[in-house]
């Protein structure tokens, strides 16, 4: 039976769980001290989710890129694909914090939004185009 080691990150205790899994089912979990830890490990086995954030290119601004984040966590296994999806995206300044940069990324029901405003560069400042 495959055994997995999972470090619980719910609280500073950082319990080291040894989990026996069959497919997506947890047969046995040892080393966890609380219920929250058990729930965390169950989520990590069944459907681990992560915040996703990156930068996208921005044109016509003094800066080159604008930081963006997902409005909700995305499946851990989709992080790399999300990153590729945004790799070639370029937006035009000005950008306001909270502007939606991409709706429903990969059909995951999650939007990507700007986390910082980016001002438009004046012509003479030679903004990057």
């Amino acid at each position, binding site marked *: 039976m495959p055994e997995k080691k999972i*470090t619980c990150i719910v609280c*500073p205790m950082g319990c080291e769980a040894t989990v026996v899994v069959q497919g997506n089912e947890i047969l046995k979990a040892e080393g966890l001290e609380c219920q929250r830890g058990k729930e965390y490990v169950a989520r990590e086995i069944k459907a681990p989710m992560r*915040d996703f954030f990156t930068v996208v290119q921005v044109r016509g601004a003094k800066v080159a*890129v604008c*930081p963006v*984040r997902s409005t909700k966590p995305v499946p851990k296994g989709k992080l790399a694909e999300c990153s590729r999806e945004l*790799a070639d995206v370029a937006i035009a300044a000005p950008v306001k914090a909270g502007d939606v940069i991409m709706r429903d990324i990969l059909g995951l029901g999650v939007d990507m939004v700007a986390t910082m405003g980016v001002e438009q560069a004046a012509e003479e400042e030679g903004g990057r185009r």
Partner: protein
Amino acid sequence: MNEDVDVAIVGAGAAGLAAAVRAKETGAERVVVIDRNSELGGILPQCIHTGFGLHYFQENLTGPEYVTRFIEKAKELGVQVKTDTMVLNVQPDRSLLTANSREGLVRMKPRALVLAMGCRERARGAIGIPGSRPAGIFTAGTAQRLMDVEGYMPGSKIVILGSGDVGMIMARRFSLEGAKVEAVVEMLPYPGGLPRNVVQCLEDFGIPLLLRHTVTSILGRDRVSGVVIAGLDENGTPMPGTQRALDCDTLILSVGLIPENELSEGAGLQMDQATGGPVVDERMQTSADGIFACGNVVHVHDLVDHVTETGIKAGEGAALFAMGRLPPLTSRIPVVPSSGIRYVVPQVVSGDNAVTLFLRVKSPVRNARLSVGNFTVPVRVARPAETVAVKLTEGRIRALAKGKEIPVSLEVTS
């Protein structure tokens, strides 16, 4: 020359902005924040990851989102900002000499001063790695700025020395942007950063964390072509026969942060060797009347939320001092780190006010007892990477502050 300023704040990062906002809210009229950068926010605009504000806002924010709230609040309250301005020195009487290209040299004597310069990264010179000097060696924060503000990729095959939080966070960013992180190499037998970063930045991407290892040589002439790593024995000495070369084009250093205190030292403030920052009391006032300090200039924090809290205290104290309404402390009792404890902040308490002590342990412990004077609390687990906070009520600290000093120690119970 001699502008009429109530509270001047050096540094517009998380600490300085919190101090500015609170100073205004407390009633100081003219509050000025000075920063050498052209933008406000310090390091936070380049920290595009989440995890900020969980304590202070009970929300999971990115660095830019967290700091934007304080920038907007400061603007709304009429805090004045002087960007692109360097503070050249601070005198014990609170006068400062500033320089920028618009006004030249300007001397300022605020009624109260807050030091919030933050910290700097330790670089290659500070850790003495032998080898040639090719391009491709960056500190983690520089790499972060290159990628997430300036839009450049620092390399494609990367080794990271040191397992500090910024280094691990960059390991994840590199991986997601298509680079290969060969390994994170850590001298100590435990990771330098938070467990959640070990899990979500390294384990998620299958990046090996090599504990008790170090980089013994950097290879390459014009550009890094590899590094030599070695296992370390109990004394931290490279063990013969464990050396091996790792191919890479980039070496990232995440080997610690140092509070930036040239100004504090120049002002003759009493310093703490263990934190690298000025000694402060529970109101974040330094050894000089009317000079306060907050954030990473006092000690390197692991959470920005705590930085903000210290900024709030310093801003409030500074505003009250400027208005002549800060009562002097009735006594100054030293809080002294003893066995198992690296440092405690604040280093001085009066017993007049409730206080939260922030302390760092020397090495990881489980099941220990923390003693603050004769007051003890059980500690299930503590790691050097995470500060331990001990809240002391007004009654408790008043009782503890009756002695000559308050020793703080940690004892393993099982």
